[in-house]
């Protein structure tokens, strides 16, 4: 019988973790294949960081098993640390060291000799466009620069698997875009990437497969294509208007029986249909009822719809998190 020679990069079964009275993770299961860019998507507090901590040996699971490249890390959480690189959600580099010094120090932690760690540090500073700031102290770096150096430090020893925890949170749009490109390049070069994020578009754009985690449970794991499939042929029109729209639900439903209407907020109507929505009759209907239409926009069905549908997490919650954390995913 043929057997798969390469084990899963990460295999997690029935993972659970409790901190005092808080059940941080209660049922997490997934498998990441070698070379995959795997997204772990969920709102803040869903258990993403706790899961990463368990996978990287910074926390011990109460229940469940973890295998990294076939190595059982359940009982020995640090057994696979030579294979992994970790970029945490907050910087853990040394503010008093320079960028170059930080990279050389991180390389030394993996037993890399002096000449090699210097050349590797220079190579990564060039790659991440930080060569000009190599001799500046890390404490004086901007958020985007800090994040880039943290990623460089995470891959200094050329790990097989890279854990990226919220890599674009709190940084400006240009830096976020540059980071996403770097992540894609790393993945193309063969690094398996485990990415946690609460930016749905980011996960959709970058990842091969995604696991949704809500309240410490993985709800669904699949490819982006498979996840989006149910809404792929759906047509969504978002109408922005001035005037009372909520009262029109009944009338709209009777007049346009083929369309589904929702009212996400005051002055906004969301129209969903299996076929293209004709804008003219809808606008005329609204204006006849003293509702002034200011914008009608076709929305591309996205993973956000799927996420909301599967997890039950309200769109506004994810929206609020974008605002709280700076909205790096654009």
């Amino acid at each position, binding site marked *: 019988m043929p057997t798969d020679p390469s084990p899963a990069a990460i295999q997690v079964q029935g993972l659970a973790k409790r*901190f005092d009275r808080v059940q941080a993770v209660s049922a997490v299961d997934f498998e990441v294949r070698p070379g995959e860019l795997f997204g772990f998507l969920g709102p803040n507090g869903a258990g993403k960081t706790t899961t990463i901590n368990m996978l*990287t*040996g*910074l*926390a*011990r699971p109460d229940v469940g098993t973890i295998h990294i490249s076939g190595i059982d890390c359940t009982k020995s*959480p*640090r057994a696979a*640390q*030579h294979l*992994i690189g*970790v970029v*945490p959600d*907050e*910087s*853990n*580099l*040394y*503010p*008093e*060291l320079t960028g170059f010094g930080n990279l050389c*120090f*991180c390389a*030394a*932690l*993996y*037993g*890399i*000799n002096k000449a090699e760690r210097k050349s590797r540090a220079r190579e990564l500073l060039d790659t991440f466009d930080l060569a000009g700031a190599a001799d500046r102290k890390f404490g004086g770096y901007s958020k985007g620069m800090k994040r880039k150096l943290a990623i460089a*430090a995470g891959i200094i020893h050329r790990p097989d698997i890279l854990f990226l925890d919220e890599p674009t949170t709190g940084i400006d749009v240009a830096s976020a875009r540059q980071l996403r490109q770097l992540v894609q390049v790393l993945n193309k070069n063969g690094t398996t990437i485990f990415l946690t994020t609460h930016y749905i578009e980011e996960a959709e754009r970058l990842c091969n497969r995604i696991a949704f985690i809500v309240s410490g449970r993985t709800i669904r794991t699949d490819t982006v294509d498979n996840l989006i499939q149910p809404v792929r042929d759906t047509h969504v029109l978002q109408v922005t208007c001035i005037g009372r729209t909520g009262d029109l639900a009944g009338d709209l439903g009777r007049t346009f029986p083929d369309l589904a209407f929702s009212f996400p907020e005051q002055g906004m109507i969301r129209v969903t249909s299996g076929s293209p929505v004709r804008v003219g009759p809808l606008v005329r209907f609204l204006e006849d009822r003293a509702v002034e239409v200011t914008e009608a926009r076709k929305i591309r069905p996205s993973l956000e719809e799927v996420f909301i549908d599967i997890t039950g997490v309200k769109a506004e919650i994810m929206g609020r998190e974008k605002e709280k954390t700076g909205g790096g995913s654009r």
Partner: protein
Amino acid sequence: MNQWIAFWNIFVKDLKTYYLKPPNISWGLIFPLAWTGMFFVKTGSGLSSIPEVLPGVMAVSILFGTTSMLAVTITFEKKNRSFERLLLAPLSFEILMLAKTSGAILFGILNALVPLFLAVWLTDLSQVAWGVLVPAVFLISVASTFMGLFIAVAVSEVFEAQTFSNFFRFPMIFLCGLFFPVSALPFFLEPVSYLLPLTYGADLLHGALRGEHTLPYLVDLAVLAVFCTGLFAVSLYNIRRRWIA
């Protein structure tokens, strides 16, 4: 992988980043001088009393230098999460923590050398038993450092580290026989003094510098070594239990 590359680089980084900074060097110089001056003022004695004062000043310099620095640096690194970076490295815990503590051990030894070098200029130290003094200074420094590690693991804030350190340090100074003999303590405190590592260190220093000691040197050295091993093992256990929970 070569774990000693990591060990050496952690050690050197800590020396450069924490221990060999000008404020710490001046601490290492001023602290023993201040204690020496205090004793002279208190006793009104002259240079002839240096051998009596020296064991106390050396021990206190080591104790305060190591516990203060280590408890603060580890707590600081834990707080700003850079300690996490070390925990993520494929290093054995033992090597990692030895690397983190080696800088403080060296700092403690250097602190002890400051009053010793001053004493060399001011008095005759020809009677000093160097074969006892050197291992004594080393073991006191190791035991104090590991006590600092034990404290660092027990607290989560930098200010707590200082407060908690004093909880151990001040009673120890007065109970360990540095400034008056253990036999002069009230009967109920005497057994307590033998539970303190510094009691054995003080006995060694008194013996090495003045030829007066209560216990055999080998017993003192052995008990200090047991304290070092015990404190290190308990600290590692606590790190695993509390920081990789």
